[in-house]
């Protein structure tokens, strides 16, 4: 019962979050004034800058730490981050692109069968937890991969992990457990 059956499962990465540092102090008011597509939030102390291609939203803090969200792959996140750093360089700051790290990857996946969540939780206590009154999905946390999988009864999965490889491994690990408790609704 292994995951490479007739159809491969499509794991679609919907969001990649990455951070990097510019190693210099950034003046947020200058960025807000001279940059296009920026939103200045003085109450929080950050500037949101949106890039068109790749579609990335970055939170820029005055300490020089920047968080990029919205990319659909790790390489895209890196490209977007570098583009952003170049943009800040052109605005006049002495930016050095450093400490780039992908922090979180969010992916969705769809099983070709529906899942019986109560049996799934019973078989996998205490790694799996399910509170139907609070959230319709069962949560399965894999400690060594640091990945969290939310399993819905329609067969959809939402996986979050520190990088794309962990996410793929997590789906492979959980597939046989889900296969045992499937409801035979074909897709």
């Amino acid at each position, binding site marked *: 019962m292994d995951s490479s059956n007739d159809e491969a499962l499509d794991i679609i990465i*919907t969001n990649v979050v990455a951070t990097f540092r510019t190693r210099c102090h950034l003046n947020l008011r200058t960025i807000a004034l001279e940059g296009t597509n920026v939103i200045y939030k003085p109450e929080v102390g950050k500037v949101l800058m949106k890039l068109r291609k790749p579609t990335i939203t970055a939170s820029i803090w005055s300490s020089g730490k920047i968080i990029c969200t919205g990319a659909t792959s790790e390489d895209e*996140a890196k490209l977007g981050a*570098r583009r952003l750093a170049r*943009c800040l360089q052109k605005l006049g700051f002495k930016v050095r692109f450093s400490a780039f790290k992908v922090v979180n990857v969010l992916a969705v996946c769809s099983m070709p069968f529906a899942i019986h969540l109560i049996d799934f939780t019973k078989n996998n206590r205490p790694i799996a937890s399910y509170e139907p*009154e609070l959230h*319709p999905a069962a949560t399965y946390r894999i400690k060594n991969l640091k990945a969290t999988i939310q399993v819905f009864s329609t067969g959809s999965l939402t996986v979050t992990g520190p990088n794309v490889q962990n996410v793929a491994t997590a789906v492979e690990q959980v597939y046989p457990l889900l296969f045992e408790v499937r409801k035979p609704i074909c897709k």
Partner: protein
Amino acid sequence: MSRAGATCPSCGSSNIVDDELYSQAQLVCVDCGTVVSEGVLASDPVGGSDVSYSRTTAVAKKPCPNLIKGLQRVRALCRILRVKSEIEDLSQTYYSQAYQHVSFINVTLHKKEVLAGCCVLVSCRLLNWPITMGTISCLLDADPDLVGVIYKEMVKILNIEAPIVNLTDVIATHIQEYKISSADVSGDLAVNSQDLTKRAVALVELAADAWIVTGRRPIPIMMAAIYLAWQSLKPTKQRLKFSLDKFCQLAKVKKHQPAAKRITEIKEMLCKLGKEIPWVRETVSPENVARQVEDILQYRFALLRRALRTHEEALLDECQASCQDSPAEEAVLSHSSEPVDQTPNAPSLEQCEMNAEREPGDEHENLCTEPQSDTQESQAPAPNWGKRLLFVPPCVIHPKRRRMEQPDLKDVTGDEEISDSEIDSYIRTPQETRDFARTQKILSLSESDK
């Protein structure tokens, strides 16, 4: 006073007196004035005395008054819910354990009250007393999300594995809140609570098969089921005219907004089944379906079979009309439709009666199956499983539109060249900057004028 037996080392005199200079004990020779010996300036040991301040000032430890109040609140909640005494004892034990834990000792009193409710909830669950989180949050008058957060944390700290509540068990206790027995309401609108319970439970089980219950909050579903059960037990014109608002006022229950949506969904499902009843002449619509509910529930398995068959035939016709590729496709479809009717339904009847404790959603697996799923899939990949099955969850009927993948970014490596012109599009020219600053100033001035 002189010390006997001591002699001064320098002059040999035996006239040594105890002289305390600044509280330091000293032995001094009177004749020559040498200090023979001296004591320690402070008599406390180095590093502070052996006994700590809190120990010297300690009184007998009294139990925390908030803990006592919390335990009383737990007891009060148990009395209100009229649960067994074992549940009361268990919840008190859990409360005292959780209270002392570091993550709950310093929280606000409101949260401690919510913690009391969560302890009662978990004890009820462990000892098989059906109760929902919604009931607890109503009793405590607290935000249900807060109750959820505290419940999860408490379960993690105390390491409890509580079984999940079955909706059908909860309905019986939930119905007690509704005041529509003959004691409270005038004759024509009154109803026997046992009949109501049975009818509502059957409706909820049927709704579970149709993907209406999965993933939804339980209380609006129960409200919808009770409303429809009440209407269908005596489908007079007066009862059919009663809207959900009026029903809730009659039963003296607070109306839940999502219940209206659930009613629509359940009625839709009942219409789909009601259409298959052979002796009904008029068209079944959501308005008059309440009259057919009794028959639908009585013959639900047969009606479900018929509805599935009709649906498949309709799909088959569509298939034949639209895609004329492979006759094999149709053969496979017609093959799978027959075993569906015959095989699962006989065992499903026994299973449904036996497994009363399993979640109602299980019945779906017995009734709506297409066993040769794999062959059908590989030969005729349908666009969306929502169209192929009769009852599907709403998320499949209205699927999320995924962001279209941009093809030019497929081979991104992250280390490409970034051209200057591209970056310039993100930076304002100096003229634009001046205009922007000016506009901002004007706007802020006009706002401050207001």
